[in-house]
Every structure is written in structure tokens, then in C-alpha cells.
């Protein structure tokens, strides 16, 4: 026997048919998310959000990328002893940036930048995979942000999708002779949105149950829009500002880091 609900003002009815409107579910999920007076730190999945088999699956999917990145690191570090410390320092910088709360306009909440776009511009996409592993692990341990069991899923979204999309956009625009800040803007914007897109897909894959996967993925992605659309633009502006600052104040770093030069194939 169904229970009665005493919510004031809400029209309650008992219906036999199950309403499958994705817009209705989106409205509820988005409003629930928006109503929570908490920092919107949804880009890293917390422990327990993914069922065990999905957590293991995503970790297994992330392992090949980490293995290739480690092999590349070993090979390149022989010729360039500064590479390992550079990757570690960029990871530490991403960790520090992730502790900086940013008020998200129009959403009434706070979030933080991913830093993946900037990392991909500085050290390339493969090394950014390692940057993401280290930064996410430090975040999980010291900030209780993200999770240990969801590390694989978070590395896939932030370290793989965010890094490769951001770096790809940056290189394409540089080849098209776009100015450095414009290319960095695109890298920051697209890496952030790619991270959220893949996080939505991961959540939908793990939670869709009997419903169509695509419908759930769209609903989750739409639920992220109120915070992530402005946050992506903010991250893009910060990435562009950072690269412009480096180019203006430290032009030696632009040539030393080979900003905009495509990374050698693994």
C-alpha cells in the first residue's frame, strides 16, 4: 500500500503508469542539486557512488593509459632529468588549485578548477594522465575529495578525456595560428566540459538500471549544466590568463615547454 505524502502545495496522486519523461527527471535532479547549499564538487565521483563492478571496470579501463604514460615517462626521463620533477610539480600545482574555491556565477555555489587543461598545455596529454593520478590521489587522501575506489573513473574523465581533448584543441588552434591565449582558452573550456561529459557518461552507465542509457546520460549531463557551464568558461579564462601571464613574464618558458608543439607519439 503506497504511503501518503504530506508535502504542502504538492499535488500528490497515485497513478499506475510510470511516467518516463526525461525532462521531469531532469527537473527534479537539477532542482535537488541546485537546492543543496554545498560546494559543487561533482567532477570527482565520491566513494560508494559507483557500484563495485563499475568501479573495478573503470579502474581497469584507466590502467592501460597509466601504463603507457609511465612507459613514456621512463623513456623520456632518461634524456630529460627535469621531466619527473616537472610532472610532480604540475601535479602539486593542480592539487593546490583544486583547493581554491571559486564562486560560480548564477549557480549560488562554489566549485574549483580542474587544472587539466593547463597541465595538458604545459606537459602534454600523456604526462597529464600521471598528473591526474597523483593530484586525484592527494585530493582523496588530504581533502576527502573524490575517492580511492573511484580513482579509475576520475582518471578516465579528468586525466584521459580532459587532457586529450584540451591538448587536441590547443594544438589545432596553434596550428591554425591562433594566438596563445585563445588556444589556451579553448583548451581550458573543452577539457573542463569533456571531463563533465565523461563523468555524466560514467554515472549514467553505472546508474541507468532498466532505463535507456542515452536518456539517463543526457539527464545527468543536463543536471551538471547550471554549475559546469559557467565553471567551464571560468576555467577557460583562468587558463588563458595563466598562459598569457607566462608568455608575457616568462617567454623563456614558452620555448622551453614547447607550448603548442604536438607531443611525440608514444
Amino acid at each position, binding site marked *: 500500500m*503506497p504511503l501518503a505524502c504530506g*508535502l504542502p502545495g*504538492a499535488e500528490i*496522486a*497515485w*497513478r499506475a503508469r*510510470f*511516467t518516463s519523461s526525461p525532462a*521531469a*527527471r531532469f*527537473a*527534479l*535532479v537539477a*532542482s535537488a542539486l541546485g537546492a*543543496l547549499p*554545498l560546494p559543487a564538487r*561533482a567532477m570527482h*565521483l*565520491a*566513494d*560508494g*557512488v559507483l*557500484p563495485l563492478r563499475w568501479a573495478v571496470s573503470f579502474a581497469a579501463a584507466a590502467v592501460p593509459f597509466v601504463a603507457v604514460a*609511465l612507459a613514456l615517462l621512463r623513456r623520456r*626521463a632518461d634524456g630529460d*632529468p*627535469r621531466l*619527473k*620533477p*616537472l610532472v*610532480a*610539480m604540475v*601535479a*602539486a*600545482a593542480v592539487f*593546490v588549485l583544486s583547493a581554491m574555491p571559486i564562486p560560480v*556565477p548564477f549557480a549560488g555555489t562554489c566549485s574549483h578548477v580542474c587544472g587539466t587543461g*593547463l597541465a595538458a598545455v*604545459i606537459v602534454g596529454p600523456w604526462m597529464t594522465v*600521471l598528473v591526474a593520478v*597523483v*593530484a586525484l590521489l592527494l585530493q*582523496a587522501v588530504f*581533502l*576527502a575529495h573524490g575517492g*580511492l*575506489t573511484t580513482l579509475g573513473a576520475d582518471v578516465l574523465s579528468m586525466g584521459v578525456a580532459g587532457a586529450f581533448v584540451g591538448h587536441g584543441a590547443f594544438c589545432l588552434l596553434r596550428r591554425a595560428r591562433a594566438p596563445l591565449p585563445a588556444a589556451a582558452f579553448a583548451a581550458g573550456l573543452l577539457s573542463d566540459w569533456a571531463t563533465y561529459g565523461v563523468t555524466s557518461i560514467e554515472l549514467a552507465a553505472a*546508474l*541507468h*538500471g*532498466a532505463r535507456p542509457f542515452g536518456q539517463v546520460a543526457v539527464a545527468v549531463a543536463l*543536471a551538471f549544466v547550471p554549475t559546469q557551464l559557467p565553471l567551464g568558461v*571560468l576555467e577557460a579564462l*583562468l587558463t588563458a*590568463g*595563466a*598562459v*598569457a601571464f*607566462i608568455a608575457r613574464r616568462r617567454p623563456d*618558458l614558452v620555448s622551453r615547454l614547447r607550448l603548442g608543439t604536438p607531443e611525440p607519439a608514444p
Partner: protein
Amino acid sequence: MALAALAVALAAPSTTSALVLAACAVVAVLAGAGRQRAPWRALLAAWSLGAMAALLRALLTPGAPLLTVHVGGHAIQLSRAGAAQGGLALSRVLAATLSGAWLTSTTPFPKLVAALAWARVPAPLLELLLLAHRHRHALGDSFESVRCAQAMRFGYVGLRRSIASAGTLVGAAACRAVDQAGATAEAMQLRGEHGLPALSLALSPVLSPVLSPALSPDFSPSESCTEANVFVAGCGAIAILASAALGWGAPW
């Protein structure tokens, strides 16, 4: 113990067992880390995402109707099975995040790295982890001092100035990271560093202050049997046993 609790939390068969595990993890966190050091604020953020995931799970599970609410012309229906699934998902998030907090708030970082080394995590990855851990405070302090200086000069008044200041701040942090990497690489070369290929056999001079307490051959299990550690371990054992026992006889 906390790792086992984390694994049990993810596979918890019922809401009751997950909640029992979560309650025991709270006790263990309070006993091991204390009320001040426990990361409650960060956990709240994780629980908000967990609540969203549980809500999704609840609404997407079809079954016999339990409740229908009309919002903006759309009927949103919650099924009996959906409510059960949503409750289970939320309790798993609570148990898993609290178990994770138990692990991280009661285990020193070098011991976590030693555990990763024991689990055959590749040495270069551990080396990156230790280097980043060592330098995060220095980078954080530098970042904070630049941010304070900007704030003192009205760098965060108005949206345009705030964005420009934040971009400069991130750029300065990136420059600092690159410079620090160069200095660290030179220092490592001067000390004859060659990474961590034989972590358990011989620790490098740079890393030994960090790792030696955890990997020391003089490490005595009896010394770690302090009252607090025994209490935390006892909480963990009770949590895991109670969770397993409740899970077998749970209604759903």
C-alpha cells in the same frame, strides 16, 4: 581494517548493513582523528553527490508505484523498488566515504605509500606522488602569499579584476612549479638520484626521511598497539562482522 571496510561498503548487500558500517566508521574516525581533524565539510560535499546519485537510482528504477509528485506539469513517480535502491545507494555512499575518511585520517601518508609499494604500484608513480606531496606545502604557501598580495591591492574587486587576478595567480603558480621542478632536478642529480627502483631495499637520501618510519626494519608491531589503535581496530572488526551478519539476514 579501513580498507576492508571500504570494500565491504561498496558491496554492502543491504541498507542496514551499510548504515551499521557507516556508524562504526564514524566512531573510528572520531577515535582515530578527533572531531577537529575529521573532514566533515568535504564529506558533506561528497554526500551531496551521493544524494544526487541515489535520487537518480531511485527515479530510474521501475516498479510498483509508491509516490507521484507533479512538478511543472510533469509527473515524477517513485516506485517501491526505486526507494529501496535509492536508500541502498545512499547508505553505500555514506559507508564508503566514512570508511575512506577512516583510512585517510588514521593512516599517515608514508604508510599509505608503503602500502602502495607493497602492492607493486610502479616506482615512478610513487616517486611522483612523494615529490608532489613534499612540495605541495611550498607551492600552497607561495600561492597563498600571491593571492593575499593581490587581495591587498584590490585584485578581487569586481568580476573583470577578479578573473584577471586569478589568471595571474594560476600563471604565477605554474611558473613557480616549473622553476621548482628545475631546482629539484638539479638537486636530485647532485645527490646521485636514480628514482625508486629498489624502494624496499635501499631508500634514496631524498626520500628516506619520508619513507623510513614506515619501512624501517626496526618497526615493531607491539609499539603500534596503543590504546587508540586497538580501539579503532576493534571498531573496524565489529563494523565488518556486523555488516556481514546483517547483510545475510536483511529484508532488502
